[in-house]
């Protein structure tokens, strides 16, 4: 993966060491067993390390995400621990109470998993397919744009704006998502366009 091989290999070796090698080398009878019993195995042994950036504030701390599963066809990766990246020049491995608990964001019970739809007046969300949701959204957009697009102002100036549909952009999506979002939104003539920088 993308992590730094040197550290990963070190942890792997070190982790294995606790379980076996180091203790075995100590060679003191019953106490050896007691020691093996008392020290919990290091949980990051054999995990995969991936570099990422904390998604919360704009300090943008470097983080290391540890995954179980090696990403092989039948063993998908899942993140099991997140810790600060000691190489990062700003946070230097530290994290705040939010960053240190990122694992529970990734695996939050309220993470959304399926596209949902609420009919007008309904008291519930119903699961729908992506195809249904996206087709319908595009249809709703097209119908309103054709109806309410303002090609010229009252003074006859070409203005080509669409004011009746708005788009609030995110604040933690990547630049690349933002670029694509800008292209889609602006090319449609949307002007009710804003992001969290405002609030």
């Amino acid at each position, binding site marked *: 993966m993308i992590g730094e091989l040197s550290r990963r290999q070190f942890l792997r070796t070190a982790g294995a060491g606790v379980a076996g090698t180091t203790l075995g080398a100590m060679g003191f009878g019953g106490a050896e067993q007691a020691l093996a019993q008392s020290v919990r195995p290091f949980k990051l042994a054999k995990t995969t390390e991936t570099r990422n950036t*904390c998604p919360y*504030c704009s300090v943008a701390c470097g983080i290391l995400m540890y995954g179980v599963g090696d990403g092989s066809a039948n063993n998908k990766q899942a993140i099991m621990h997140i810790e600060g990246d000691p190489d990062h020049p700003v946070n230097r491995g530290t994290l705040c109470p939010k960053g240190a608990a990122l694992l529970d964001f990734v695996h939050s019970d309220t993470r959304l998993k399926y596209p949902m739809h609420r009919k007008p007046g309904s008291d519930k969300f119903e699961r729908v397919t992506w195809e249904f949701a996206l087709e319908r959204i595009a249809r709703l*957009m097209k119908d309103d744009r054709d109806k309410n697009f303002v090609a010229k102002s009252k003074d006859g100036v070409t203005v080509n704006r669409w004011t009746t549909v708005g788009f609030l952009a995110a604040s933690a999506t990547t*630049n690349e998502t*933002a*670029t*694509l979002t800008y292209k889609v939104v602006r090319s449609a003539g949307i002007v009710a366009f804003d992001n969290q920088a405002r609030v």
Partner: protein
Amino acid sequence: MTNSWADIGWTDLAIIMGGNAAEAHPCGFKWVVEAKANRGAKLIVVDPRYTRSASVADFYCPIRPGTDIAFLGGVINYLLSNDKIQHDYVKNYTNAAYLVNPAYGFSDGLFTGYDEAKRDYDKSSWDYQVGEDGFAKLDDTLQDPNCVFQLMKKHFAIYTPEMVERICGSPKDKFLKVAEMIASCSTPTKTMTSMYALGWTQHSKGSQNIRAMAMVQLLLGNIGVRGGGMNALRGHSNIQGLTDLGLMSNLIPGYLTLPTEKEPDFNAYMSSRGFKPLRPGQMSYWQNYKKFFVSFQKSMWGEAATAENNWAYDYLPKLDVTYDMLRVFDLMVQGKMTGYFCQGFNPLMTLSNRGKLTEGLSKLKWLVTMDPLDTETSRFWENHGEFNDVKTGDIQTEVFQLPTSCFAEDEGSLVNSGRWLQWHYPGQEPPGEAKLDTWIMAQIGQKLKALYQKEGGAFPDPILNLTWNYADPNNPTPQELAKEMNGSALADQMDPKDATKVVVEKGKQLSGFAQLKDDGSTQAFCWIYTGCWTEAGNQMARRDKEDGGTGLAPKWAWSWPANRRILYNRASSDVAGKPWDDSRKLVYWAGDKWAGIDVPDYGAAFKPEQTVGPFIMNPEGVARLFTRKMMRDGPFPTHYEPFEAPVANAVAPKIRGNPAARIFKGDFAALGSSDKYPYVATSYRLTEHFHQWTKHVWVNAVLQPEFFVEISEELAKEKGITKGGWVRVWSNRGSVKAKAVVTKRIKPLMVDGKPTHIVGIPQHWGFMGAAKKGMNPNSLTPFVGDANIETPEYKAFLVNIEAIASGPVA
């Protein structure tokens, strides 16, 4: 930030005012702690509450919410009256010597040209005197009564220590101690850093709060130097990037602006964007505006943008007004909006006056949310008892809730406060059927395009001709998009000195924005990002942290512009190019070139004797103490009360709020007064939570589980409120129920002779997630924004409070 996080470790004095860095940015705040431990630096905190930043400060001074300009005006007055300014810097690097139009004036709290009916100014007199040569006139002696320096002296003279105490409630002795500590940084070898965030922006005069401190920093000579600067700590992880990329009503990527309908054609558009230098020989870098604009249009529309059609100028919408969030929700309430997208945004919890928001969302035909988390906005129609008391059956809005990936699952770059673009990688796949945001946006774009291809319709050209050169049109990759942001050559680029030599071949990535052209031969989506992904590869993924301890980390990731880490860094040396402080050299004249540890923010070929100013983006070449016509509410900051205030404006009693701030009629009517709502409320974040996200995170829900408000022991006693008991807090717009934290950390302030109580209301709870269901300050906050950028006044409003027997029922 003008500087970067680790650079704070080089300061002598950190002032946290208008923010709470220890709580909101703990890992950035570390650099204050480092500066204290390693340099003996001091920390000042000025805040209505004794915060966790204050708990490690050398000096804490309280202030009433919404009175920062009076306080900073007091500091400016102190610096000028006591001659505590860095003279050479002020004279050479600011517009202190510039002569202002004699028609400019200020009286009774208003600048010349005010039109009460429009709540706006005719700003024509707010400008320099211009000579026949077309250049601004100066008085190098700073004595002319119309020079900026003298006008500034006059403007701020009313903010005496006594006036500061009267308006702000900050005890005079404490204010003077702060002023004295700040003044100690007026020598060239001592620097102060200003760290601020939403505590300054979220006011009806937020932009002017920041300007006031920027003026202090200029007077001290602290801009462009190590350990100095104006450091906006920024909120979300890519709020800087989304702003850079122009995802706002009036922006084009790289801080270009969308045309308005007063600019019917390209010539009219460019005529106000010439940026002719205002002094001889100045760089005035925005003179390259057309190169950036044409390269953007080519990036958007490729072959369809030609010289003949003015680079597809008409493909861009033209504004009649700015459609900021406040206006859009107001339009919703008026029934003028059909549909709304919320991408990773939860406005029901985060915009002001929730009652109005619910009304607006209920009038939409449809709402689409895209989020990794189950947001309140996506469930605004769902009844949650007192926590969301709506009549579900009456709400006819069709809602789509689309599940997206989160940070751990996507790849790409984010921009931090210090303007670093940092690349990250995915560690797992999104859960269930959740999808990448890029995939979702591509689907919407492609499906809309297909409908227009099939059916035709209103002006389909910009949709049909939108550049879409992705290997998989349904799934553009972050690599493809990042290269697009950077830009490439559309034709061979020749060496300007040797027309036979190709500098950049057609189709290759550009290496910097200096290569951009206005003839259509280059494309770049966001000119300030040009250099982020060059032929040498992805610069944002660089991981060499070595910087010799300077904190600049020039080989780590990539920062805009041009990998420059400290903006205006030419100002770290004097006019002759000699560093102000030899122990903190940054950029200096090495006899034949500009050298130093950062990329010079300057023309490489300029010699010091050319006296090109260090503020190269400005046509003056210097920084502006007097902002000319750039801001709606005045060329100097001046004290205005919040729209809801416990006292009349002490310096202009007739004026309510900021006279140039836009406020809609109904929202003006919804303001409360101090007879019914005697307490000053302020909303804020706590360190245990991030905005509205971490209430979904179990561990953070444990650390701070339940909504509360904070009050002083004195107010608790007065109102019979007990620690941990329930209270009701209400404004003229809504009501919330909360637990009471009674604390010594908030103390009543004496304002204009009367005790004034403060109610602190944190912003983290809602009706979804792992934390206890809770209410939110935005049930109470006023629907009015800053005069320049429309950020709502979340930080200062009026409420009442009472003890109640029990909490809300779900």
